[in-house]
Structures are given as structure tokens and as C-alpha cells.
């Protein structure tokens, strides 16, 4: 009987091994472990054995049964795994196909530049001040040391609405308005906005463009403060390695007046087409607030001094992104706009 049992075990294990599907395996299970299977038969036939052999044989039968059951379970797990794998194989997709697009728009490049400038100066303690685009001649010119008939008014041919009202030619009237309303308090503002000049639109001129100006007024504001502020700004905006240089210039509302160049961010100063072989790029105009401007706004120029600066986001965007025609900013071609959708850092 022992022999018979061993043979049975070997037979069952072989069939388990040979089973190729869950169904086949189930057949094996029924055949060997089922109620009508040989192992059950053997157990049933135990009664015929002498009493002293029964426990030994009983144990043996159980070992065989467990061995077969374990083997069956292991095989079953394997087959199920295989079945899953086959199913997954069939579910394979082409991962090289494009994904479902996420619908996203983005900032206009000018807004991108303006916000970057705003955020730098906000971090330096500036507030953002805005004012009307249609201005009084007084705030646009007179309060800025440009009385009627001043030759420097030629510099900015303007769009007049009436004799005393015009489209602002710069954002400086916001400075004049802020000074007039702050009545002697210290000021630290940045003024972005649209401005208008009587220019025919071409690759480098636009009758409407953007400006961003800054103004600091306080006791003992020095020209070295202007230089230090602009140097920090240049590094933030154009890279840590940027050097600045100031050149004398002229604006009616500042004295002294300067223009600021930065070392070329493309060639680093050795000379290229961006910097016209000079190594320097003109970025902004600035100066110390003219005493007449302070006086007109009710600040005593003996006590208060200040600095102001102004720049054109179009020019900065053109330099930074290599845009060759200012009209691109106002055409709103989706193929242009959609390029400004990613970070630069």
C-alpha cells in the first residue's frame, strides 16, 4: 500500500506539472483529491488494515495529500499569473502617441517683462502706482519741468485731445500725481503702463508702447543710491555677471541725467551683433529728480531729494528674446504669443 501511495503521488505531481491551463489543473484536482479520487478511496480502504497500522498509514496518506495540494496551489498561482500576463500583453498601447493636450494660455511677453520688473522692485519695498492714460498737459509736461514752449517737448510729439489734454507720452505723470498726493511723504514707487507717441508704426517704432518708471523720494537720497539700485536690478533681470555703466544724458525732469548700459548678455562684453560690437547695451534712462519737479509737487528740494528711472519693456523683451520687430507685440499672432509659455530658469 505504501508503494501504491508513492506511485499515486508521483503520478499526481506529474499531471500537475503537465497541466497547461487552470481548467486542466482543476481536472487534476478533481481526479486526485475529489470525493471519488484515489486518495479518498485509499482513506476509505483504511478500515481493512490492522488497527496498529492505521495511524501510520493515515499519516502517510495525509502527507501525500498535502504534498499534492501544495503543488496544486503553487501551480495554480503560476497559471493565474500567466493568464494575467497574457491579458496585460494584449492591453499594450503605443506610448509614443502624443498625450491629451492640457489647454493653457500664457502671459503676453510684455506682461512677462513688466511683472518681472515689478516683482524685483516690490521685493525692494516699492509699491506699484498707476494713472490715467489720457492725461492733463500739466502732469504730462508742466509738472515735470517742461513748460509750454519748452524745446524738449519736441522730443515727444504727442496726440492731443484738447489743448490741455493728451495721451500721456510717458508714465512720468504718474510720478507727478503720486508726489502731489503724498504731500511731502517719502515715496518708493514703480509705474508701469501704456504710453503713446506720434510715430508711424514700423519695425522699431510704435505709436503705442509700454513704459515702466521708478521714483524714490526721501531725505538724503543720493546718486550713489540710484547706481546701487540699478546695478542690483540689472543683475536680477539680465544675470548675475552683468556690469553696469552710467553715461551722462539729458531729461528735463532729472538733473543730473544718465543713461545706463549693461554689459552685453550675449557676448559678455567682447562685442557682437546684439551690442553692435560695443560690448554694452543701453537699457534705461535715469537721473536725480530735478529740484523744480520736487518744488512743483510741494517737496522742499533743500530737504528732499530723489531719483527716477524709466525703461521700455518692448526694448527689453526684444533684446532678451531676440524679437526683431516691435509690431509683433501688438499683432497678437498665436504663433508668437504661444512661445512665451515656459520658464527661463
Amino acid at each position, binding site marked *: 500500500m505504501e508503494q501504491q501511495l508513492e506511485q499515486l503521488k508521483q503520478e499526481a505531481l506529474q499531471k500537475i506539472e503537465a497541466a497547461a491551463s487552470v481548467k486542466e489543473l482543476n481536472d487534476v484536482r478533481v481526479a486526485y483529491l475529489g470525493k471519488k479520487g484515489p486518495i479518498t478511496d485509499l482513506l476509505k480502504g483504511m478500515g481493512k488494515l490492522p488497527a496498529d497500522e492505521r495511524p501510520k498509514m493515515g499519516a502517510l496518506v495525509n502527507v501525500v495529500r498535502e504534498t499534492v495540494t501544495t503543488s496544486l496551489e503553487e501551480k495554480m498561482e503560476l497559471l493565474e499569473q500567466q493568464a494575467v500576463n497574457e491579458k496585460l500583453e494584449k492591453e499594450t498601447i503605443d506610448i509614443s*502617441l502624443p498625450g*491629451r*493636450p492640457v*489647454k*493653457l*494660455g*500664457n*502671459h*503676453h511677453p510684455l*506682461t512677462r517683462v513688466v511683472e518681472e520688473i515689478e516683482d524685483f*522692485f*516690490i521685493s525692494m*519695498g516699492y*509699491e506699484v502706482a498707476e494713472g*490715467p*492714460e*489720457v492725461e*492733463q498737459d500739466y502732469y504730462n509736461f508742466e509738472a515735470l519741468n517742461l513748460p509750454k*514752449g519748452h*524745446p*524738449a517737448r519736441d*522730443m515727444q510729439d504727442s*496726440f*492731443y*485731445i*484738447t489743448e490741455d*489734454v493728451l*495721451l500721456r507720452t510717458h508714465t512720468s505723470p504718474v510720478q507727478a500725481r503720486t508726489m502731489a498726493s503724498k504731500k511731502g511723504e517719502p515715496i*518708493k514707487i514703480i509705474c508701469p503702463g501704456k504710453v*503713446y507717441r*506720434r510715430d508711424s508704426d514700423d519695425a522699431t517704432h510704435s*505709436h*503705442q508702447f509700454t513704459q515702466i518708471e521708478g521714483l524714490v523720494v*526721501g531725505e*538724503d*537720497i*543720493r*546718486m*550713489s543710491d540710484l*547706481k546701487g*539700485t540699478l546695478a*542690483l536690478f540689472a543683475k536680477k533681470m539680465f544675470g548675475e555677471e552683468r556690469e553696469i*555703466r*552710467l*553715461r*551722462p*544724458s*539729458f531729461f528735463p525732469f532729472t*538733473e*543730473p*541725467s*544718465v543713461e545706463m548700459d549693461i554689459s552685453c548678455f550675449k557676448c559678455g562684453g567682447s562685442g557682437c551683433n546684439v551690442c553692435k560690437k560695443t560690448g554694452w547695451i543701453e537699457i534705461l534712462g535715469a537721473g536725480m529728480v530735478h529740484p523744480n519737479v520736487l518744488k512743483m509737487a510741494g517737496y522742499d528740494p533743500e530737504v528732499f*531729494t530723489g531719483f527716477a528711472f524709466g525703461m521700455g519693456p518692448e526694448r527689453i523683451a526684444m533684446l532678451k528674446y531676440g524679437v526683431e520687430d516691435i509690431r509683433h*507685440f*501688438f499683432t*497678437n499672432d*498665436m*504663433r508668437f*504669443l*504661444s512661445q512665451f509659455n515656459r520658464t527661463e530658469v
Partner: protein
Amino acid sequence: MYVSTKWLENYVDTKGIAPADLAEKITRAGIEVDTIIDRSEGLTNIVVGHVESCEKHPEADKLNICQVNIGEETVQIICGAPNVAAGQNIIAALPGAKLPGGIKIKKAKLRGEVSNGMICSLQELGVEGKTVAKAYAEGIYVLPADAKPGTDALSFLGLDDVILEFDLTPNRSDALSMLGVAYEVGAILSEDVKLPKIEYTASNEKAEDVLTLKVEAKEDNPMYVAKVVKNLKVAESPLWLQNYLMAAGVRPHNNVVDITNFVLLEYGQPLHAFDYDRLATKEIVVRHAVEGEKMTTLDDVERTLHADQLVITNGKEPVALAGVMGGANSEVHDGTTTVVIESAYFAPASVRKTSKDVGLRSDASTRFEKGVDPNRVAEAAERAAQLMAELAGGEVLAGSVQFDELDKESVRILLSPDYVNQRLGMKIPMDEMVSILGRLQIPVEAANGQLVVDAPTRRQDLRIREDLIEEIARLYGYDEIPMTLPIGESVPGGLNSFQEKRRLVRRFMESAGLYQAITYSLTSRAESQSFALETAPVTELLMPMSEDRSILRQSLLPHLLDATTYNVARRIDTVSLYETGSVFLGTQEDGLPKEVGHVAAVITGKWVDHAWQQENKKVDFFVMKGIVEGLMDTLGLTDKVTYAKATHDGLHPGRTADILLDGAVVGVLGQLHPTEQKKHDLKETYVMEMNLAMLLAESAEALVYAQVPRYPSMSRDIALVVSKDEAAGSLMDIIQEAGGKLLKDVAVFDLYEGDKVEEGTKSLAFSLTYFDPERTLTDEEVVTRHDKVLAALKEKSGAVLRG
């Protein structure tokens, strides 16, 4: 202003500094050198030649065979210029010569005759045609008799010169003269300025014996000097003088006119020369024109004058438009023997206005407009008289006829060195400041720790202390200014709530799939009020550049639609743009229009476009409404916003809604009217525009979190058949009201309009969510509540449950 470095050397020693380096120094010190023009660049092998003989080419009518002495030898050169002749000294470009524009001269044969080079015009050497004397404008240039054959023609013509083109700021009119430039360069290089020596022998006859002067307009003409030169001979100027004029961009005419132009460039003082005999009256009267009076100016244009225009007259009729242009009737001509030299100070405003009114801007008027140096008016007249004696053989009458009430005082400015250093943030020693002002030839004395500065009249830009601070700083060097930051109380910066929320709006619009556009504020009359949310008078330019940009917009949509059309025309079928910007309405008390911030958007084409999975969805009303709803949610305004069916010009009458905030219209959304779509070459297009100022003025409520539900909610769906006209919104209102506090949410989940429901009706399905935050609701409670909802629907809208 063109500055010839060769000419400049007469007044200041530039110590052999290369022109490019000199230009850099000048730029860094304050006057921007725009371009550096090397006049001899690319020119080689160009010599003086003497035409020994000149005969017609036997084979070609227009060609001449010239035998040209070029020093060591005589060579044959074929020349096609009409004015070539034997006996002339000419410019010969020999084989191997290079000319501007990459032209190389080679030995060649022309119709069988050998040509050993080319006889040149000035233009062929790169001289601008408009500066070449008229006699040589159409042919070769003829050199004076003293030119030596075989010598370098470039130095003879003064072309071995580098020109610096100055880009002058309006305050630096002092540099509109060679002497002014010399002062500036002298200060930069610490060199003295060599002023011209004015020496001549005057005749015994006095100017006042032959000429009288009356100034009847003292305000506009506070100084007038007239000198008389007799017995001169009008001729071509010496070459050096012509060369200087050409270098400065001025065309030579004759010695008298050239001398006035030379002195204008040298001193910055415009002069005018009258033919004394043609003046006829021995009298000069300066007055304002009689309204309607006529005169013909040098350019042969007859001009009708106005009463505010200053004229020079001979006592009877105008002979010059003061400071702007001379008259044809008194012009110097070849036969002139006696001239009156006029040097005057005309008030800047007067000249500015006259020159603008008559549309004439000249080298003279631009200088008068800025204000000439009061202390050089008389001197310039003397300088011209001297040159007319030297170069035209004239006899200068003694003295001058003068009127002079001009203030010639310099401006005294007291300056403390501490003040300078405090303003600059520097520590420049006082003697350094004195030295810098000395280099600028600005008289300065140090007394009691103060600088007493007398700003010279040639520097009219120096009026206050700050002007001097700039002079000191720019010559000390802006590179020397340290870098500091403002000292004082530091306050946090930031955006105000409007600015912050406007950024939020932009970010939302972009996250919703729209690209930010920036369009022009100026538009045409036809479009200025299209799509305007409110009716108000327009703001119009006095003098527009074109009709298209003549009025300020009252809506952002017209230009956004133009941008959409632009894109669609370039086969970009899906366009999604938004803009934030101002519209301009009416006129307020201060004379300015009311500027209101708006936000607008346009979408057209496909909203979902995922082709390979066959997922495409065109834009529709509800895409745009979804954007508006999302924006309202972002701004925390959802509970205050309602929508009302509306009609607007330009929008589809059945697909347009007003957007209301607390019951007041803040904007509109809808489909572009099919007629408008056609007009703009657009397919189905949806637009939205809102008053951003109104939206952002409303504050959102404080954000306090609502507890995440601990008890389950229960859902009940209902499908209703209602009249086609019944709005889903009003059904939802009924449901909300009847549902009371237990009804947490109601949502539309199906809309059916087809043949499975009776004609004139539609089926709408809603999903209702019941919930109590305090406990789990029982079935009975929900059923009771739900039945109330159904009853209310039936009663108020006649809605029938769909079977």
C-alpha cells in the same frame, strides 16, 4: 552735428588720440557720438592729375581720350564726363585703386583705346552728392591750379579725415559749433582751447557812414550787428574752406556765402550776407511783418507773412525772414561787390514759431531756437569780416552798425562742496571740483569753503547747482560713483488689491486656455463704440495720424476680433485670446475721460482637439460661460452672480447673456452675430467682456473652511418634461427654494430635445443631493422633502415627470 576731427585740431590738441578712442571719451563724458565716419576708408591710389590734352574718342561720342600727367609720367585715361577739358587738374584713380562700394580700378580698353585709370567725381570718392558744389554735381571734380600732379589727392581734398557724428541732447546746443566742441574736448583731455585770432586792417570809411539801422522789435531782436565789406570779389572759395563745409555736410556756393556758413559752424552764430547795392536804401529796419505781407525767400518760394513773424527790411520791403531764411531780392550773386554781414540775436521762441509756421528748418533756425551765445554775436561778425578780407579781397569798413540791449551777464551760482558730495554720495575734494570747472573754462573761485561759479553764456544749460553737480560728476567720471542703497525706514512694498486681483484674473484666464493679447487703444470712428457696455461720448484726437487710429476705444472686443481674424486668415483655426485694458468713456470734471478697466475674451474653432482619439469639440456658448463662471469662482463672487438673457448689437439674439453682479450688469457674453462673423471672416465665435473695475471692487468673503462631511448624502434624480421656453435656471431656482436647507446641491445632467418628447417640449434631468451636516438622513425625510420639490415644480412650471 558732424565734427571733422581734422578741423577740430585747429582749436584743440587731441594729442593724436585715435578717433574711435576720442569718440568713446566724448560719449562717456556726456555727448553721445552716434557714428564714426572714416572718409578715406577703402580709398587707395588716388592722385592729382593734370590733363595735358583731351580729344574725342574716334569710336564713341561721349568718351574723351585724355593724356594725364600724374607726376612721374603721363598716361592715357578715357573719361566720359562732359566737363573734362585740357588744362584741368583732376582726381585720377590709378590701376589698383579702390573706391567706395568695393570698386577696383584696372587697366582697361574702351572701344579699342587703353585707359590707365579713371578720372573721378567727388561722389565716386564717397562724398554725398548734396554737399558737392553745384558746378561739379554732374561731372568730374576740378582741383585748383596749385594742385601738384602725382601727389595724394585725398589729403588735398581733406578726405584724410574722420568725422564724428554727435547725437546732441536738447540742452547741449553749445556743442552745435566747432568751438563749443573744442571746449568740451579740451575739458575731457585737459587741453586749452585755441580761439581764432581776428585781425584785419579796416578801411577809413565807417560802416555807419553807409548804413543805418533801426530795430522796431526789441523783444524779438535784442541785438543786431551789421558790418559792411566793400570791393570784394565773389568767387569759388579756397579748397580748404570748401573741404571743411563738405565735411560738415554743407554744400559750398561762393566765398561770401561759404564764409557765413563757416562762421556759423565755427561759432554757432548764424550770419546772413546781403548784397548792399541790392538793398538799395542804405537802411536796415527790423520789424514784425504786416499781416498778409509777401516776400520771396532764397528758395524762390513766395510766402505770405503774419504779424507775429520777424522780418529784416530795407525800410520798404522785407529782405529776410529773420533767423530763418534770406530773401531772393537781396541775395549775394556773382557780381556782388559790397555786402552787409548780419549777426544778430533773435529770440528763440520767435524763431521757433516762425520756422514751424513756414515749415523751414535750417542750420540757422535750429541754432537761434536754442539761443545763441550773447557774447559771441559781435565777434562772429568780425570773424566773417576778417575772412572776407582775406579770402574775397574785401575792404572792411570800420566799426559796425549796432543795436544792443541784450543781457550778456553770466549766471552766478554758489555751490558748497558738501552739497555736491551729499547729492552724489561721494567724497570729491574741493580742489578737484575747482580743477574740473577750470578744465571746462568755467570761471570759479573758492571762498569760505564755497565755490563761486560764473556760468558762461555759451553754456545756457548751466543755471542751478544741480547743473554744476552734473558737470563735476561727469568729468570726474560716473564710474567713480559708489553703489549704495537708500538709507531710511524700509517699508514693505507690494501690489494693491486691484493690482493683485488683476494678476489673479490674468492667471485664471491663462489657466483656462486663453492667451493674453495687447491691442491698440486707438481705433476708428466706426469701431470706437462697437460692443461698448455703456453709452458715453467718445474721446477723439485733435490731429490723428490716420482715421484708423483717431478715437479711443470703448470696448476691447473690436481689436480682439481683428486679431482673431488675423490668426484665422493665417490658418490658425482655433484662436483663444483675452485682454485686460482700459476703455475710455465721456469726459469727467477734470477734462479727462473716465478710464475703466475691462477684461474681454474671444474664442473660435475647436475647444477640445485630440484628433487621434477622435475627440473634437467646437467652442460653444457654454465654454465661454464656463470660463466666466470659473473666473467668478476664483474671485469668490459665484453667489452674487446671475445671468440674464439679453440682446446686444453685434451678438446673436438667441445666444447672448448679460452678466449681473448683485443685480447690476457687469458684462456680456455670447455668440458673435452671424453677420458680424461673416464681416470678420470668422466661423462660430464667442465673446465676453466685463467691467473689471466693478468686479474687482467687490470683495470676496473671508475664506473659512466648511467641515468635510461626516455623514453620507443622498441623491435623487428627476427627469422633467417642460415647455421648450422654460429656462433650466428657473427650474433650478424652484428646486432650490422647495428643497430648503436639506438640499445641498442640484445639477443638470441631461437635456433632451427630440422626437421622443412631445413637440414644443423638452426633457431636462436634474440630480438632487440631500444632506444634513449633523446626522444621517432617513429615507422618509428625503422622500417627504423630494415630494415637496416635485409638487413645487408641477405647480410653478407645469413640469411633468418624464415616464
